[in-house]
């Protein structure tokens, strides 16, 4: 009897947690389809705000910036993180713990500290060399730095999960170092790479703080645009952007999760 009560209580708690997590999102999604521009009452279903989005050039360019930033930074982070992940695996027996802490520090650092540091650094370098004009370029560099640890960790854990004799089997079966990479390592970690790419992608799309500090006048991303627009009040248009972002990030996260599942199989 008591066991059943406990079970019911736990089930209830589960639904409460889900509601707590998703109700705010549901409100945004719902009001993005509101026929009137009231944020208080839902007067009817309409695509109006989505149509309006498509005509807003600022939004379209912010969307384009977000995509370019997310894709380019993810690709670069994938390349570098993959090498670091493999390096960590190869030298896992050596005492390199402190080095790994160095790589992970950016993850635990508050975004605002990280963002300000990046900004200060770029400003200094720009003053001295004329390079690193704030804009998409500096944003890509900043995003790559916080994406790398995630990629490295995913790749590393894939390698650690492998039977180490597979590397020897590839050598034993006449694979030259280059062929080992092409025919053994890359195909073996492919699910990890796909998972890491989509995780990096969502991290980049989600980021506001670091982007904000490293952006230039022309390189506002969607989160930066929303933040600017919201100062004039929450328009239903913002709800529509938010809904599209929720959809995009959810899809990327699901793909990432699917491939990280397969990696464990």
């Amino acid at each position, binding site marked *: 009897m008591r066991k059943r009560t406990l079970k019911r209580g736990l089930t209830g708690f589960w639904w409460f947690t889900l509601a707590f997590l998703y109700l705010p999102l549901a409100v945004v999604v719902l009001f993005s389809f509101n026929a009137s521009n009231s944020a208080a009452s839902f007067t009817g279903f309409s695509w109006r705000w989505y149509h309006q989005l498509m005509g807003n050039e600022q939004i379209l360019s912010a969307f384009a910036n977000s995509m370019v930033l997310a894709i380019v930074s993810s690709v670069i982070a994938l390349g570098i993180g993959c090498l670091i992940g493999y390096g960590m695996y190869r030298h896992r027996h050596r005492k390199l713990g402190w080095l790994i802490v160095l790589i992970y520090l950016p993850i635990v650092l508050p975004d605002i500290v990280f963002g300000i540091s990046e900004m200060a650094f770029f400003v200094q370098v720009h003053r001295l060399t004329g390079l690193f004009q704030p804009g998409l370029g500096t944003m890509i560099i900043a995003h790559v730095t916080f994406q790398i640890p995630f990629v490295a960790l995913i790749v590393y854990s894939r390698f650690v999960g*492998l039977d180490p004799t*597979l590397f*020897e*089997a590839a*050598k*034993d*079966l*006449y694979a030259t170092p280059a062929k080992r990479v092409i025919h053994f390592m890359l195909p*073996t970690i492919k699910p990890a790479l796909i998972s890491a790419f989509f995780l990096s992608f969502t991290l980049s799309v989600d980021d506001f703080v670091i982007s904000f500090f490293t952006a230039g006048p022309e390189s506002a991303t969607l989160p930066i645009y929303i933040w600017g627009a919201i100062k004039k009040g929450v328009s239903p248009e913002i709800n529509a952007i938010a809904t599209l972002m929720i959809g995009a990030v959810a899809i990327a996260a699901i793909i990432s999760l699917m491939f990280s599942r397969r990696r464990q199989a």
Partner: protein
Amino acid sequence: MTDTLTLDSAEASRAADGATAEPAREASSIEMQGLHKRFGRDTVALAGVDLTIEAGEFFTLLGPSGCGKTTLLRILAGLEEADDGRLSIGGRDVTEVPPHKRSVNTVFQSYALFPHLSVRENLAFGLKMLGIAPREREARVARIAEFIQLGDLVDRRVDQLSGGQRQRIALARALVNEPDVLLLDEPLSALDAGLRSQLQVELLRVQKRLGMTFVFVTHDQDEAMVMSDRIAVLNGGVIQQVGPPREVYEHPANAFVARFMGHANLYPVSARDGDRLTTPLGVLSAEGAGQGELLLIRPETLDLLPGDQPGENRLPATVGERLYRGSHAEYRLEVGESTLQATVNNRGRRLPEVGDRVTVTVAPEDLVTLSE
């Protein structure tokens, strides 16, 4: 690598579009000189190994874990580099040749099948890396699948295979490359006893038909004796004895080999008068036992007679312990202050019970001596 596998079984010949069996390809010998290997500062894995393995031999490296047998195998594969010494395979010095350039393949203890590839792709991996054309690759994979009788296993995924099936795929994946030498690193140790003896027979069949040089690593002396043409017993990175199974078992070179082969009845010889040896058990006469200072009495050479029956090479004993094993019984006998182990076949006669007085007899020609 241009020769083809000899498939001299009737069914394989028929499969190979009616062609008659081809002659065995030239097998390769292995020559090791003064191989040394150290890990870190303190761990000596190999302390000077000189060994010649004949072409076409089923050769076993036997020893306890940490004796250096796996290190030696890995040096043969090129996965480990010797600190010192030379290694040649088939007359060619390969001491510094990397593994992917050696015509040597390994069956790993963990099988090491690639999880991202199908069974068929696993089998073709080596050939693909060698740059063999797809058509020939397929033909050779089909031929080896027939030879190892893989049946429909080739169309499965690696994660659908049982341990025994993985083992056979790993064997086929190595053999399909037709290497000069096949290395096997405890390939049967992960399998249960029944499957194990079945695969032992299969491995032997494969080796005899191909006439290929096999180097087999195991810590199991029974397995070594069943499989091998010759055995090298290793301990502490040093070869203790090399010889055919019978020689190693019946005439161990030293106490370590004797104990490793399962012999416990070792007694110091305190005095010697011609063929009469004085030991803690009493005085025994031996014939051609050698000049060693330790007497070895193999348990299966002993006979038990009921009661006290004094005579030449007869020792009065009390049964201390009996393990009944059906086909035979193992005894621990007390002879004065010493203990003696005896294995007695169950021939339907009465087997002495614990506490019985018995007389142990041994033939002089069954006694051997060895050095510490």
